[in-house]
């Protein structure tokens, strides 16, 4: 009963925030009804279309980060795991900085493909190193942290040594949905939809992982195979999101955590709840960025981290963890 009321409240909140996302911006406010009417009739002008694209990107970003983070937490049996733990964000960021070192004003689609590609490359390196060390959760985390730092070092080197790399938009480096492209949003939405369906399908097996490897194996789960598949799905989703919007922090860690503290760890229920809360956090953070920034853009991570960390701390204390 309590869960149903909470779900209804969150769905209404998401709908309200989405409407606000389309209606509010630095170019002024539009009545939500008028905006909806104009969009449905195929009109609305460039400002409304931009806001719709941007708000949709924030929704996909938040929901996708939450599903990716949740799956990473189950796969590695670590509530501190987030979508970027296995190197995809620094890998993707490196790819984009590298592109800016060689290209002047690259097309958004090229930035996207490059980010996605390097996110996947970083993940494959991590999996290779992790397998070399035994492929358990700890080996993967150690490999992920090491590869992340290595790519971080390369990013710093590129930015400090290459004048052209300095042209990179720093807002992207800390995450933003201010520069959406229809193509990259569609590609990302498709990847998030596909990975989420597969995660949901493996839901009962992922749930069994909370019991530890031995017990999960004894119930019939092929733990090593499932872990590899789950981190691959999570990292593919995260790579596409970083490629679209840069590495936005905290939502992928905090949304799944908050949901699991509130409703327990049943994977499928937690997946639905996390995506709902992640979507709210994504759109809410983007709205906050627009309001705080006025006409100028502020990176999303500034808001997700500043607002998210006290909320997470409060929730953890309240639920006695």
């Amino acid at each position, binding site marked *: 009963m309590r869960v149903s009321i909470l779900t209804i409240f969150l769905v209404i909140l998401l709908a309200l925030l989405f409407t606000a996302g389309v209606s509010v911006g630095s170019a002024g406010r539009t009545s939500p009804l008028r905006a909806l009417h104009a969009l449905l009739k195929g009109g609305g002008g460039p400002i409304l279309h931009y806001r719709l694209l941007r708000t949709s990107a924030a929704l996909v970003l938040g929901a996708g980060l939450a599903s990716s983070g949740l799956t990473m937490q189950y796969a590695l049996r670590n509530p501190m795991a987030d979508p970027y733990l296995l190197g995809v964000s620094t890998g993707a960021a490196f790819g984009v900085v590298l592109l800016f070192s060689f290209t002047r004003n690259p097309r958004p689609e090229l930035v996207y493909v490059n980010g996605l590609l390097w996110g996947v490359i970083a993940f494959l390196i991590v999996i290779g190193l992790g397998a070399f060390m035994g492929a358990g959760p700890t080996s993967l985390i150690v490999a992920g942290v090491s590869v992340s730092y290595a790519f971080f070092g390369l990013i710093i080197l590129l930015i400090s040594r290459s004048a052209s790399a300095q042209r990179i938009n720093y807002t992207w480096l800390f995450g933003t949905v201010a520069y959406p492209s229809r193509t990259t949003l569609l590609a990302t939405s498709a990847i998030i939809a596909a990975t989420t369906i597969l995660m949901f399908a493996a839901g009962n097996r992922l749930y*069994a992982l909370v019991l*530890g490897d031995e*017990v999960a194996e004894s119930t019939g789960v092929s733990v090593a195979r499932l872990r590899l598949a789950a981190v691959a799905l999570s990292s593919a989703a995260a790579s596409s999101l970083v490629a679209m919007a840069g590495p936005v922090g905290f939502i992928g860690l905090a949304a799944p955590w908050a949901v699991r503290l509130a409703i327990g760890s049943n994977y499928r229920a937690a997946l639905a709840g996390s995506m709902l809360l992640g979507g709210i956090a994504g759109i809410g953070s983007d709205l906050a960025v627009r309001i705080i920034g006025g006409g100028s853009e502020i990176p999303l991570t500034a808001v997700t981290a500043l607002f998210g960390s006290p909320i997470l701390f409060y929730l953890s204390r309240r639920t006695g963890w």
Partner: protein
Amino acid sequence: MIEAENAKVEAGGRTILEIGRLNLGPGLHGIIGPNGSGKTTLLRLLSSIMKGSGRVRVCGLPPAAARRITSYMPSHPQVDLLATALDVILAGLYGSTASRSNALQAARLLGVDDLLDRRFHTLSGGEKRLVCLARALARRPRMLLLDEPLSFLDLANTARVLGLLRGLSRSMPVLITSHELHYVSLMDTVTVLGEGRVLYHGPPSSLRREVLEEVYGLPLLEARVSGLRVFLPADIFSPEHT
């Protein structure tokens, strides 16, 4: 229901378990032996967590195929930090035909139904043990493989669990490892392991004290309580210590 013939498990280039022949039907079967003697390895072999060579059958099936009808409980569960007691019991239903109501029934049976909303990691050692036992029973298994199910339990819960397991063992094999030698006489059979080999297998009444003294490497006292044999370390219960 459990058959093993020339079964062998190797790890790190050495044999850690070697069984010539072992047949276990319904009943309460105690597996005893010092630390590192192969007790846990035997349960892992039967629950398909570890692979071995030789012939092993569980209810007529290879262990991997029998996982849906067996329940294994480790001595040290590695449960996710955010999981609740209810999560532990429900997540454990994977692969079985049991339902949520079986899970809740098992929780009531073990007396942990009022702990279900608590985070597993905040429970006491004994409470964790009872939740894990409820998880094992909730699957409605046809065989129980329990690694040290009596550790951390207080006297009342030990009696409750032993009574429960004795009841279940009338219809299925219940294997328990234990360091509590004073419960040996309550078992239907006892298997003594030493350095991965079976040193004794049979009814507790025929188990000679010397076998236990050799495997544990210390002298034991043998006493009788209500007609049942009880073994105690002689040094600790000698007059200079009491």
